[in-house]
C-alpha cells in the first residue's frame, strides 16, 4: 500500500507553512508594526539632517545647541564614521553614507541626530546649524561611456528605419515606507528591517563600523514592500551607526517623500537597416544616454549590458552602438528589475516591426528569419507564439470612415526577446544543508537570507523530488554565516537557481544516508525511498521518515553542499502577443490580453514564473501610463491591465532528475526577458493600432491626443434630410 500525497500530508503535516498561516490571518509582524506599536521601552530615535540644496558645500555642522536639549544623545557627522564608504561601491567614490563637506542633491543626508524621545529629537533637528554655501547649478556631466561594435557597415541597397526615443525616470512607491529598528545587546546588533538583509550588506556594515561580522545579525521578517536599493542601505547604515555610537537600540523610519525610488532615465536614437530584397536585418546603430541622477550607481554596467543585449537578439552584420552616462543634480536613480534591457528593446522591437511592415512580411516570420541563430529554442518559442493568436492583421485601420461610424481601433503587437547564456562566471559559493528532524520533517538551511515565500517553496520542491516526499515536509530558512569568503558577493536579489542546484546535491547526499540507514535497519541491500519512507524491495517492509528519525540515532541525517564557481549555460527566450483597443473618439486605451511563451529552461516552480509575469505586466503598465513623475503617483497594477493573461512555458522534463543531476535549473535573465518582452509587445500593439511609432514612454497626452485632428466635420459627406 502506498500513500498518496494527501494522506501523507494529512497524517504528518499541516498543508501550509507557519509563515503563510500567520500572514493570511494578519498575525505576521512587519517592521512598521514594531515601529508603531511594539518597540521596546529603551529604544532611541534617529532622524536624518538632509541637504536643502542641490549642489552646495559646507564645512561645519554646529550641533552644540542641539546637544544641550535634554534627551539628545548624539549628533553623528561624516567625521565620526570609522569608514565613510560609498553606497554603491566599497570605496570613497560616489555618494558617501554621510556627505563630507559637499552635497549634490536636495535631500542628501549629512548628519544623524539620536535622542531619547521623539519630542527631543524634533526639537534637536531644528537646532542643527549647517553653514551651507550653495553652488551655482551645474549642468549635466558625462561620467562614463560605453560602446559596442560588431562587423563593418554593410554595402548594397539597404532601407533604413529610425526612431528617436526617451524613457524618463520612472518613479514608484511601495506600500510601506522604509523603516526598522536595531536591537543592541552587549555590542551585538540585531536588525529588524525587512528580510532583504543580505550577506553583502552585512559585510558592508562591518567594514563601515570596523567591527567583526559576527556582531551584526538580522531577524528574518516578512517583506512589506521592501525592495532593497539605496534607501534600504541608507536605513541600515544609519541604524548601525546610531546604535553602534550610542550603544543603544535605535529606530528610524523614512517618510515616503525621502523614499524616492526613481529608475534611471534614458534617451537616444536608434536606426535599423535591412535589405528589402532578402528581407534580412543588416545593421543596428545609434546612441543612448542614461541619466543617473547625482551619483553613478551601477549605471555604467547597465549601459554596457543594454547595448550588448540590444545587439544579440537578431543576427546583425553590423552593430555600432554608443552610449554615455550623465550625472545631473537630482536624486540618485537606481536600477530596477530588468533595467536597461527593457529600456531599449521596446525601441528595437518597434523598429523590427516597422521593417516587417515595410517588407510586407508577417512580423513573426520576419523575426524567425532574422533572430539570432544561436538563440536556444528561439524558433520553438516563435512557433508557439504563432499558435497563440493568428492570423495577424497587417491591414491598417480604415481612417476614411465618418467619425461617428468609427469602431474601436484595435492593435496587436508581438515581440521577441532573447538573453544570452551566461559565460563562465565566477560566483561566490551557495551553501545549502538539508536535515531530517526528529519530527520527521525536513529543514533546509540556505546561505541566503533573502528568500521570499515562493523561492522557499521552489527549493522545497527540488528537495522533495529527490527525497521522494511531499514539498510540504520541508521548512526553508536562511542562515547567517560566521565568515564570508568573498565580501563582494551579490546577494540583493537571490540567486535562486544556484541554490536549487545546491539543494539538489545536498538532498541527493541525504537520500544516500537515508538508504544506508535503511540498509542497516532492514538488513537488505535493496532499499529505496518511496512516498516519505524507506522501503525494502525484497521484504516490502517500510519505515516512514518520521519513525526513522525517531529510531535511528547512529546516523547523522543531515547533508550539506557548497556550490562554487558554476556556469549557467542556458539562455532564455520569450515571445509575447498583446492586444489593445483604442476608443476612436475619447482615446481611451484598453489592454485586452497579454500572452507570453517562455523558454525558461528546466523550471521547477511555475508559480514563481506566473508571478514574474504579473510583475512584468504591472511594470509595463506603470512605464506606459504614469502621467506625472512625482512620488504621489499610485502604483499601476495588473488590476489596470487585462484579465486575459496567459503564460506558456516550453516543456522540460525533470523526471529522472533524482538519478542524474540536472546540469542547471532555470535560465539566465528570466525577469529581464519577461519585462522587456511584455513592454515591447504592448508598445508594438499601440503602434499597430495608432499607426504612429511610440517615441516616448510614458505615453504623453500629445501622443494619445494628437494636436492635429484626423478629420473635421466638413471632410466627409453628411447625410442631410
Amino acid at each position, binding site marked *: 500500500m502506498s500513500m498518496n500525497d494527501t494522506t501523507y500530508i494529512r497524517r504528518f503535516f499541516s498543508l501550509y507553512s507557519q509563515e503563510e498561516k500567520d500572514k493570511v490571518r494578519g498575525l505576521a509582524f512587519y517592521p512598521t508594526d514594531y515601529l508603531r506599536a511594539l518597540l521596546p521601552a529603551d529604544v532611541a530615535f534617529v532622524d536624518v539632517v538632509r541637504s536643502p540644496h542641490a549642489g552646495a558645500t559646507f564645512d561645519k555642522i554646529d550641533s552644540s545647541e542641539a546637544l544641550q536639549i535634554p534627551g539628545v544623545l548624539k549628533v553623528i557627522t561624516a567625521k565620526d564614521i570609522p569608514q565613510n564608504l560609498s553606497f554603491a561601491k566599497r570605496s570613497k567614490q560616489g555618494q558617501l553614507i554621510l556627505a563630507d563637506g559637499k552635497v549634490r542633491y536636495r535631500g542628501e543626508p549629512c548628519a544623524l541626530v539620536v535622542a531619547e524621545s521623539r519630542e527631543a529629537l524634533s526639537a534637536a533637528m531644528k537646532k542643527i546649524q549647517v553653514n551651507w554655501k550653495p553652488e551655482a547649478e551645474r549642468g549635466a556631466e558625462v561620467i562614463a561611456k560605453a560602446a559596442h561594435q560588431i562587423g563593418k557597415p554593410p554595402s548594397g541597397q539597404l532601407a533604413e528605419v529610425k526612431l528617436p526615443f526617451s524613457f524618463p525616470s520612472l518613479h514608484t512607491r511601495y506600500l510601506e515606507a522604509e523603516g526598522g529598528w536595531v536591537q543592541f545587546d552587549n555590542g551585538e546588533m540585531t536588525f529588524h528591517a525587512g528580510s532583504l538583509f543580505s550577506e553583502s550588506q552585512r559585510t558592508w556594515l562591518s567594514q563601515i563600523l570596523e567591527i567583526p561580522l559576527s556582531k551584526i545579525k538580522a531577524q528574518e521578517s516578512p517583506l512589506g514592500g521592501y525592495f532593497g536599493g539605496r534607501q534600504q542601505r541608507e536605513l541600515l547604515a544609519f541604524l548601525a551607526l546610531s546604535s553602534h555610537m550610542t550603544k543603544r537600540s535605535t529606530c528610524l523610519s523614512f517618510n515616503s517623500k525621502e523614499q524616492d525610488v526613481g529608475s534611471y532615465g534614458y534617451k537616444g536614437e536608434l536606426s535599423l537597416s535591412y535589405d528589402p530584397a532578402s528581407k534580412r536585418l543588416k545593421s543596428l546603430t545609434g546612441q543612448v544616454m542614461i541619466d543617473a541622477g547625482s551619483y553613478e550607481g551601477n549605471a555604467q554596467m547597465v549601459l554596457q549590458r543594454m547595448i550588448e543585449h540590444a545587439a544579440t537578439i537578431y543576427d546583425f552584420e553590423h552593430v555600432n552602438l554608443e552610449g554615455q552616462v550623465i550625472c545631473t543634480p537630482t536624486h540618485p536613480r537606481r536600477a530596477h528589475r530588468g533595467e536597461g534591457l527593457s529600456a531599449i528593446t521596446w525601441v528595437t522591437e518597434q523598429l523590427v516591426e516597422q521593417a516587417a511592415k515595410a517588407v510586407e512580411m508577417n512580423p513573426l516570420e520576419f523575426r524567425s528569419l532574422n533572430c539570432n541563430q544561436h538563440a536556444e529554442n528561439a524558433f520553438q518559442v516563435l512557433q508557439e507564439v504563432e499558435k497563440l493568436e493568428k492570423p495577424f492583421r497587417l491591414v491598417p485601420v480604415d481612417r476614411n470612415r465618418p467619425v461617428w461610424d468609427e469602431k474601436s481601433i484595435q492593435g496587436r503587437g508581438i515581440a521577441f526577446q532573447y538573453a544570452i547564456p551566461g559565460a563562465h562566471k565566477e560566483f561566490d559559493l551557495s551553501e545549502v544543508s538539508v536535515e531530517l528532524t526528529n519530527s520527521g520533517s525536513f529543514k533546509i538551511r540556505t546561505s541566503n537570507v533573502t528568500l521570499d515565500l515562493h523561492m522557499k517553496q521552489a527549493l522545497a520542491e527540488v528537495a522533495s523530488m529527490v527525497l521522494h516526499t511531499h514539498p510540504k515536509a520541508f521548512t526553508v530558512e536562511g542562515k547567517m554565516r560566521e565568515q564570508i569568503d568573498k565580501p563582494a558577493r551579490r546577494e540583493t536579489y537571490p540567486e535562486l537557481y544556484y541554490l536549487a542546484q545546491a539543494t539538489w546535491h545536498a538532498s541527493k547526499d541525504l537520500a544516500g544516508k537515508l538508504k544506508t540507514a535503511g540498509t542497516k535497519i532492514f538488513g537488505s541491500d535493496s532499499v529505496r525511498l518511496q512516498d516519505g519512507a524507506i522501503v525494502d524491495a525484497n521484504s516490502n517492509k517500510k519505515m516512514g521518515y518520521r519513525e526513522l528519525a525517531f529510531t535511528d540515532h547512529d546516523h547523522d541525517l543531515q547533508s550539506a553542499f557548497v556550490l562554487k564557481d558554476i556556469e549557467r549555460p542556458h539562455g532564455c527566450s520569450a515571445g509575447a502577443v498583446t492586444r489593445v483597443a483604442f476608443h476612436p*473618439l475619447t482615446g481611451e486605451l484598453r489592454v485586452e490580453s497579454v500572452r507570453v511563451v517562455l523558454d525558461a529552461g528546466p523550471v521547477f516552480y511555475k508559480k514563481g514564473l506566473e508571478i514574474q509575469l504579473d510583475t512584468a505586466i504591472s511594470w509595463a503598465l506603470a512605464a506606459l501610463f504614469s502621467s506625472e513623475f512625482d512620488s504621489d503617483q499610485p502604483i499601476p497594477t495588473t488590476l489596470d491591465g487585462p484579465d486575459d493573461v496567459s503564460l506558456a512555458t516550453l516543456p522540460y522534463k525533470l523526471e529522472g532528475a533524482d538519478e542524474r543531476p540536472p546540469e542547471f535549473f532555470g535560465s539566465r535573465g528570466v525577469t529581464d526577458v519577461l519585462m522587456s518582452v511584455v513592454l515591447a509587445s504592448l508598445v508594438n500593439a499601440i503602434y499597430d493600432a495608432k499607426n504612429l511609432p511610440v517615441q516616448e514612454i510614458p505615453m504623453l497626452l500629445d501622443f494619445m*491626443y*494628437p494636436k492635429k485632428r484626423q478629420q473635421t466635420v466638413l471632410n466627409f459627406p453628411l447625410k442631410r434630410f
Partner: protein
Amino acid sequence: MEFLSPRYLSEAFEAMDKGGRNLKICAGMTHLLRFYPRFPEELTSKFDGLMHVGDLAALSESREESGKYSIGSTARISSLVEDDYLARYAAAVREAAALTSTPQIRNRRTVGGEVAWGSYHSPLVSALWAMGAKVKVRTRGKNGSAGQEETLDLAQFYRGTQKRLAAEGKEHETRSAVTGGQDLILRFVLPAHQPGQFSFFRGLIPKIHTENSGVVLSVSGSVQNNVIERARVVASGVWMDTMDEELPLQAVRMNDTYIFEKLYTFCDRYNFDSIRRGGPPGSQLGLIVFGLLKEGFSTLLAR
C-alpha cells in the same frame, strides 16, 4: 477643539446658531482626512469645534416627497448605488455613484460631502447637476439670529474655483461653493419624474484605477413618441470646467443616426478652449465629449 456629535437635527441647528463661524461641519471626512493627514491642526482656517453630522438619521434618508425624490445629504454614496428609485428614474445618478472612488470610500463618503468639496472630476456632481437637482442648505446663524434655509440650483451653488492648500504644499483646485464649512447641506431634491425621461452618465476611463477622470459627463432629457423633447448635458473633469448646455436635439427622432451628426456638429462648434483646464487641446476635448455622448446615446438607442 471640541467634537460635537448631535443626535437630532434640532441639536445640530442649535449648535450651529450658537457656534456661528467657529463650527466646522463634517460627515464622512474622507476628503478632509486624505488631504490633511494631520487634521485638524493642518487646516488653514481655525475652528473652535467640529460638528459631525454623519450619523444624523434625519439627514441620511432618501425618500419620495410629493412626486419629487429627496436624497438626504448624509446618505452614503454606496447607498445611492443600491437605491431602487434612482435605478429606475435617475440612472445617471446611480451610475455616477457606482463610479465614485473606491468601495471603501463610497461606504464612508456622503453625497453632501462630495458636493460640498466640489471636485471637477466628481461624477456625482455632474449627474445631480444634469438632473436639475436642487440643494437645500441651512446657513449658520448670524449675529445671534437663527440660520435660514435656502434652496439653490447647483449652478447657483457653485461660484468659481478655489484652491485648497493641502499637506506638503500641494494644491487642489475645486469648485467653490457659496456656502461654507459652517453651513449645513440638508438634502438634494430631484425634480418629479416625467414619463419619457431619460438620463445617463459617462466618464473617461482613467489610465490608472486610482486616478481621476479627465472628463465626466451626464445627460438628462425626455422623449415623447420617440422624439426627443429636450436634452441637457453637464460635463466637467480634471481637464475642463463645467459645461452646462442644452443639446440641439429638440424634435430629433430617437432612432436616427442624425442624432450623432447633430451632436458632432455641436461639439465641433463648442468653444472647449474657453473651459479647458488641462490635458488635451480644446478640439480634442470636443471629440472626447462627443465620444462619451455617442456612447451614452448608442446605449439608449439600443434599448
